[in-house]
C-alpha cells in the first residue's frame, strides 16, 4: 500500500477535482471514497511528521472518515436580510449600519424579498423541496458582534429541504475519468450574518464593525456523505460554482462570502459512526481540505492511542497546520431557540396555489423562479464535452477559474484553430502564465482576440509552435501589440521558400558528413540531429516536418538532390 491516501494537489486547477490515485485506493467496500489507513507509519495525511514517526502495528482495522458540512454563503443583494442598509465588502467600518442592525430598541425586522428569491433559486438548483411555509427563530448567545443578543435564523422549518448535489471526482492514473458523486443537501436556511470583532490584544480592546451585521446568509447543510478533505473541498467548489452561476452569492472565500464549518468523525467500516468534532470558520479551499484531513488523522491517532474523541468545536490554525479546541466554545451552549415574534410565517406560492388577486410585489412564485434558473455548471461542462469533444477534466478546469470559460469561448469564436488546440493553449499556456503571476483572467494582458489571432497564424502554419510560444510571451510582456506585429518584428514567420530551405539542408548535410553517415547506417535518432541543425540555421523559423521531408528525400537512395517544386506538406 503505497502512496498517500489523501492528496493535496491536483494537476488541473488548484482543487478542481478530488484526484484519487486508483492504484493506491484500498479499504473494505469503499467505492471511490478516501478510506484512511489507520496504520501508523502509513500516514494518510502528508506533512505530519508526528504521525509518520510512529511504528505500525499489526492486525488493525482500517478507518473510514465521515464529513458533513455547514456552508454559510452571503447572499448577493443590495440590502441586508432584514434592514435597508446596503451590503458592500470593505466599506469603512460601521458605515453600513441601520438602526435595526445596531439593535436599537423598538426596531423591527422587515424581510428582504431578494434574499428569499435567492434562497428559493438556490434550493431549486440543489434539487430541494421548497417549503411553502417556513418560519424564523431567534438563536440566543452573547457576543460583542451580535448586537441583539440573538441571531434570526430558520431552525424549526427552513425554506428548503431534502436536496442533492452532484460533484465530479477525478480518478484513474491519468485522472481523465470523472466519477460523479452525490451529496445530500439536508436543508437551506435563511439567517443573519454577525458583525466583525477585531481584538486589539495590546490595548486589550475589542473593536466592533457592524457593516456585516444582518447581511443575508444562506446556510446550506450538506449531509455527512463525504469522506476526506479533498471530497469536501470539491463539493464546496461545486456549490461555489452553482451559487455564482445563479448569482445568488458571489461566494468569494477570500472575502468571507463563503465560510465552511466541517463536522468530522471516524469509525471502522460496518460499525456505528464515531463521535464528531466541528471545525469552524474554514475560509479557504486549501485550509478546508487540510483541516479536515488533519482532523481525521488526529481522531484516528487519538482512538488508536486509547483516547476518546470529545464532541467539541475546534478551529484550524493555518500557521501550525493543525486543529485546536476553541476556548470560547468550551462548555455547553444552549441557544434557547424561540420563534421570532416580529415576523409572520414566510409563505411561498406556486402557479397552482397563487391567489388570483395577489399583488405580484407581495408574493413569491416558485414556478416563476424555476423558469428563470440559468444553466448550471454541470450542464455547461456536459455541453463543452459534447460540442468540442474535450476531456471532462478539461471542462472542469475551464469552469474552475473565474472568467476562463468566457475567455475560451471568445477565442473559439475568432479562430479557425481546432477546439482541442484552443483548449490546450488556454488551459496550459494561458492559465499557466496567469498562475505563475497570480493573476485573474480579467487581469490578463493577453486578450481573447490576440490569442485567437496567434492561433490563426499557427493554424495556417505562418509560424511554428515554438515561435508561437515566443509570440505569446511577447504578447504578455508588451500590451497593445498584435501577434502579427510581433511576428514581423522578431522575424518569426516560417520559411516558406522551399528552395532556400533545400539549400540550407544541403549545406548542413555537407557540413556534417558523420551524421549523414549515421543516418544512412540506420541510426534513427541521427536524422533528428540534422533536423535540429537545419532549424537552428533557420533561426527556428522552419517547420520541422518540412525539413524532415526534404532531408529524407535527399538521404534516400537515388536522390538527385535537385530543388523540389513541391509546395507545403501537410502535417501528419
Amino acid at each position: 500500500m503505497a502512496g498517500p491516501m489523501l492528496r493535496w494537489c491536483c494537476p488541473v486547477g488548484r482543487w478542481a477535482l478530488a484526484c484519487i490515485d486508483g492504484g493506491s485506493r484500498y479499504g473494505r467496500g469503499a467505492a471511490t471514497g478516501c478510506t484512511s489507513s489507520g496504520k501508523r507509519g502509513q500516514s494518510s495525511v502528508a506533512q505530519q511528521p508526528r504521525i509518520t514517526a510512529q511504528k505500525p502495528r499489526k492486525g488493525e482495522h482500517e478507518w473510514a472518515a465521515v464529513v458533513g458540512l455547514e456552508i454559510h454563503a452571503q447572499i448577493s443583494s443590495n440590502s441586508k436580510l432584514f434592514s435597508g442598509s446596503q451590503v458592500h465588502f470593505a466599506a469603512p467600518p460601521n458605515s453600513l449600519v441601520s438602526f435595526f442592525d445596531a439593535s436599537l430598541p423598538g426596531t423591527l425586522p422587515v424581510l428582504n424579498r431578494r434574499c428569499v428569491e435567492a434562497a428559493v433559486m438556490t434550493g431549486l438548483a440543489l434539487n430541494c423541496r421548497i417549503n411553502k411555509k417556513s418560519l424564523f427563530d431567534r438563536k440566543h448567545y452573547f457576543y460583542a458582534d451580535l448586537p441583539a443578543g440573538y441571531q434570526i435564523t430558520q431552525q424549526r422549518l427552513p425554506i428548503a429541504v431534502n436536496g442533492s448535489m452532484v460533484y465530479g471526482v477525478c480518478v484513474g492514473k491519468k485522472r481523465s475519468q470523472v466519477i460523479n458523486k452525490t451529496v445530500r443537501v439536508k436543508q437551506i436556511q435563511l439567517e443573519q450574518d454577525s458583525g466583525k470583532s477585531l481584538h486589539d490584544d495590546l490595548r486589550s480592546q475589542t473593536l466592533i464593525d457592524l457593516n456585516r451585521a444582518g447581511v443575508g446568509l444562506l446556510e446550506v447543510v450538506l449531509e455527512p456523505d463525504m469522506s476526506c478533505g479533498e471530497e469536501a473541498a470539491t463539493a464546496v467548489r461545486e456549490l461555489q460554482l452553482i451559487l455564482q452561476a445563479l448569482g445568488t452569492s458571489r461566494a468569494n472565500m477570500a472575502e468571507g462570502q463563503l465560510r465552511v464549518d466541517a463536522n468530522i468523525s471516524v469509525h471502522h467500516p460496518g460499525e456505528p459512526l464515531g463521535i464528531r468534532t466541528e471545525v469552524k470558520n474554514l475560509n479557504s479551499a486549501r485550509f478546508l481540505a487540510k483541516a479536515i484531513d488533519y482532523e481525521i488523522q488526529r481522531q484516528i491517532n487519538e482512538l488508536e492511542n486509547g483516547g476518546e474523541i470529545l464532541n467539541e468545536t475546534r478551529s484550524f490554525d493555518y500557521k501550525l497546520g493543525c486543529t485546536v479546541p476553541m476556548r470560547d466554545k468550551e462548555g455547553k451552549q444552549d441557544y434557547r431557540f424561540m420563534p421570532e415574534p416580529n415576523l409572520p410565517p414566510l409563505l411561498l406560492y406556486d402557479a397552482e396555489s397563487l391567489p388570483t388577486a395577489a399583488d405580484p410585489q407581495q408574493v413569491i412564485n416558485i414556478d416563476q423562479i424555476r423558469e428563470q434558473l440559468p444553466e448550471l455548471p454541470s450542464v455547461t461542462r456536459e455541453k463543452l464535452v459534447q460540442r468540442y469533444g474535450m476531456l471532462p477534466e478539461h471542462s472542469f478546469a475551464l469552469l474552475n477559474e473565474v472568467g476562463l470559460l468566457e475567455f475560451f469561448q471568445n477565442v473559439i469564436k475568432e479562430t479557425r484553430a481546432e477546439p482541442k488546440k484552443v483548449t490546450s493553449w488556454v488551459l496550459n499556456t494561458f492559465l499557466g502564465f496567469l498562475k505563475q503571476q497570480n493573476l485573474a483572467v480579467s487581469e490578463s494582458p493577453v486578450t481573447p482576440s490576440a490569442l485567437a489571432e496567434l492561433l490563426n497564424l499557427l493554424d495556417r502554419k505562418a509560424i511554428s509552435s515554438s515561435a508561437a510560444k515566443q509570440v505569446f510571451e511577447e504578447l504578455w510582456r508588451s500590451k497593445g501589440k498584435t501577434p502579427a506585429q510581433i511576428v514581423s518584428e522578431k522575424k518569426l514567420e516560417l520559411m516558406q521558400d522551399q528552395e532556400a530551405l533545400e539549400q540550407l539542408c544541403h549545406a548542413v548535410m555537407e557540413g556534417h558528413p558523420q551524421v549523414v553517415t549515421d543516418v544512412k547506417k540506420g541510426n534513427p535518432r541521427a536524422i533528428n540531429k540534422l533536423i535540429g541543425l537545419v532549424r537552428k540555421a533557420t533561426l527556428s523559423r522552419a517547420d520541422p516536418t518540412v525539413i524532415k521531408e526534404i532531408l529524407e528525400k535527399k538521404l534516400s537512395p537515388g536522390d538527385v538532390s535537385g530543388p523540389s517544386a513541391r509546395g507545403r506538406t501537410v502535417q501528419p
Partner: protein
Amino acid sequence: MLGRTLREVSAALKQGQITPTELCQKCLSLIKKTKFLNAYITVSEEVALKQAEESEKRYKQGHSLGDLDGIPVAVKDNFSTAGIETTCASNMLKGYVPPYNATVVQKLLDQGALLMGKTNLDEFAMGALGSDTGGSTRNPAAHCGLVGLKPSYGLVSRHGLIPLVNSMDVPGILTRCVDDAAIVLGVLAGHDPKDSTTIQDPVKPFMLSSLTDVSKLCVGIPKEYLTPELSSEIRSLWSKAANLFESEGAKVIEVSLPHTSYSIVCYHVLCTSEVASNMARFDGLEYGHRCDIDVSTEAMYAATRREGFNDVVRGRILSGNFFLLKENYENYFVKAQKVRRLIANDFVNVFNSGVDVLLTPTTLSEAVPYTEFIKEDNRTRSAQDDIFTQAVNMAGLPAVSVPTALSHQGLPIGLQFIGRAFCDQQLLTVAKWFEKQVQFPVIQIQELMDNCSSVFENEKLASVSLKQ
C-alpha cells in the same frame, strides 16, 4: 379647556377661541403643578412650544392639518421619540436618545399634535400604564375615568415601541371619550412597512355612527369573569350595564371562555421568555448604560445588566431563559403556546356563536391607595390587575375600557368591551352608545388644579410618602 374632549378643543382651536400656544402653556402649567405625581419622566417643553408655534401659524394661514393639529398629547416613555430621551424608566436606558420616532409618534406629529413629554411607567412597562401588553392601557383608564382602547393586534404599528412581549404589545390610546379614541385610532391605524405584523389591507377612516338601535346586538357575558375577588360594587355595576343593554332590546347571553383561568400562568411563561430574548440586546455596547468594569466583555455584560435592570426585570429574564432552555422548551414554552391557542379559540367560538361584543369588568376594584398597592409583589399585583384584560392580548382582539360610574368613594370605575379581531369600529360604536347612556361625570380640571395647589404646598410631604 383642559377638561374638554379632543373634538371640543379642536373646534375651539378652529374658531380661534384659544391658540395652540395658549393651550400648550396651560398644559405645561398643569404638568408643573402636578409634578409630585411623577406622571412624566421627561417634559419636552421646548419641543412642545415650538410645535405649538408652528401649529399657530398653520391656523392663521388657514392650513390646519386636521383634528389633531395643536392638540397636546403625551406618550409613554417606551415609545421612541427622535431627539427626546426614552428610558422605559430603566437605568439601562438612562440617557438614551433615540435617533428616530416610533411610527405612531410620527403619525401624531404629522397631524400637528404637540408632544408634551414622556410619561412614567414600570420599568419596561412591566406593570401598569399608552402601550397594552396585558392591560396597561385599559387598567389605568378604568382607574382614571378615561377611555382606554387596546386596538386589534396588527392594526397599529409597533415600530419604535420598545417591546415587552412582541406578540402581545399593542400601542394603546387613552382619551376622554370614545369618539376621541376613534379619531386617534383613525390616524394611527394601518399598514406600516416597518412592522411586518401589521395588516396589509388598507384601513378605512374610523367614523363612528351614532347607534340608536341595539336590538340587533348580541352581548356576551363571560361567566368565568365572575370571580370571587371581584368587588361587589363593580359586580353590581356590571349587571346594571347588562340590564341596560337588555332593556334597550339587545340580546344579552351568558357565554363561556373555559380556558380563562390559565391565561395568567400561560402569560407568565410567554412573557418572561420574550422578555429574556428582548432584553438580550441591552449589553451596554451600542447604547444605554455601561458599567465601568472592563476586565472582559463577559464581566462588562454581567455588571452592566446587574446595574441596569431592577429585580422584576432580572427575575423575568431569569425565568424566561429557564423556560427556553432546550430541556424545558417543550414542557413550558410549547405548552404555553398551545394554551394560548386554546384561549384564543375560546373567543373565536364565542364570536362564531353570534356574539358581537363581550361585556366584562376592567379591574377587580377601584384604584387602591399607594400603601395598599405596594403590599403585593409585582407578580401577584400584575396577576390581579390583568385578570380581565390579559386574555384579550393573548387572542389579539380589540378591547376598550369605558368609564361607567364613580364608586362610593368617588373613584372612577370602568367596564370593558371586547370585540372581534379587526372589528375595532364595531366595538367602538357599541362603546360610544354605552358611553352616552351612562353619562360619566366630566372631569373638573379647575377643581383638580385647586386641589393640586393645596397638595403642591405640601409637596415635600407628598413626595416623601410616594417614595417610600
